[in-house]
């Protein structure tokens, strides 16, 4: 299980939404964990030089952190597309979050062999919608 990657992906997405450093409150909210847990993990990621954290300003990913976050986001896109396209899961955003810690990149790569994904992935991910903007669902406009 790799919760560090989940945090990196979340920080990346919050930074995108906030167009600047990510507040630990927003990170905790997106992950549905307590602010104390988020603070603790951010501290661990900072020690590994994957992000920097300034009090009252927020969290910013380092270059290495961005690379890992984008890989994690790509895995997440694969899980979402697999759930929606292959298993017909309607609530795929919610279930992808639950499955993320047990589907690592090697497993995601195999699932990727049976789904359609656009070459620009993960740039097409819509942080606010928590899904690929190019994923055509029945509920899409």
């Amino acid at each position: 299980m790799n919760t560090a990657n989940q945090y990196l992906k979340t920080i990346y997405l919050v930074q995108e939404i906030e167009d600047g450093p990510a507040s630990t409150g927003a990170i905790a909210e997106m992950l549905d964990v307590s602010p104390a847990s988020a603070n603790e993990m951010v501290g661990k990621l900072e020690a590994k030089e994957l992000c920097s954290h300034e009090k009252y300003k927020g969290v910013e990913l380092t270059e290495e952190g961005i690379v890992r976050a984008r890989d994690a986001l790509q895995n997440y896109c694969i899980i979402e597309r697999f759930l929606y396209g292959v298993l017909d899961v309607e609530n795929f955003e919610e279930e992808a979050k639950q499955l993320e810690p047990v589907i690592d990149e090697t497993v995601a790569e195999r699932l990727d062999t049976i789904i359609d994904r656009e070459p620009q992935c993960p740039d097409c991910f819509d942080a606010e919608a928590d899904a690929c903007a190019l994923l055509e669902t029945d509920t899409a406009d």
Partner: protein
Amino acid sequence: MSVQSPVGSDHQLARLLQIGVVLEEVVEARAAKHTESDLDDEELTALLEDASEESADHRKRLDALVDELDAETIPFDEIQTLVESQYESDRDFDGVLYDQLCNEETAYKFYDDLIEAIETSDAEFSIDRDRLLGVLREIREEEEAGAEEVTRLMETRE
């Protein structure tokens, strides 16, 4: 749902077992496609046929568990169609062996993570936990042995 408990209910367990079934179906379908191409290598063809049989056995065992959880799995022919639509046929001996190694290692990693997630979860499932873990551990061991078998064949051909 917190990031710490990915297997907290029958529903989540069934979903993960469904993914296991799909992974086995991918292995089976890809091995079948490899053997369709003119490999001209008895040892490799035998290895792929064994892998395909083993995957079919694994998915049936997983299917039975999913069934007990009142869920359904994806029929093999659906996955076969998806694999075939994206399969690249121009694979040589090394490519086929490498793909097979990825298959075995991926399956091993998946079961290893799933077993760990179940072991650390305090959820009550409608399937007996010891029996569930027993089946998954057996499958994991077979995947590990499969990966070793592919590695051995790779080494003898170097």
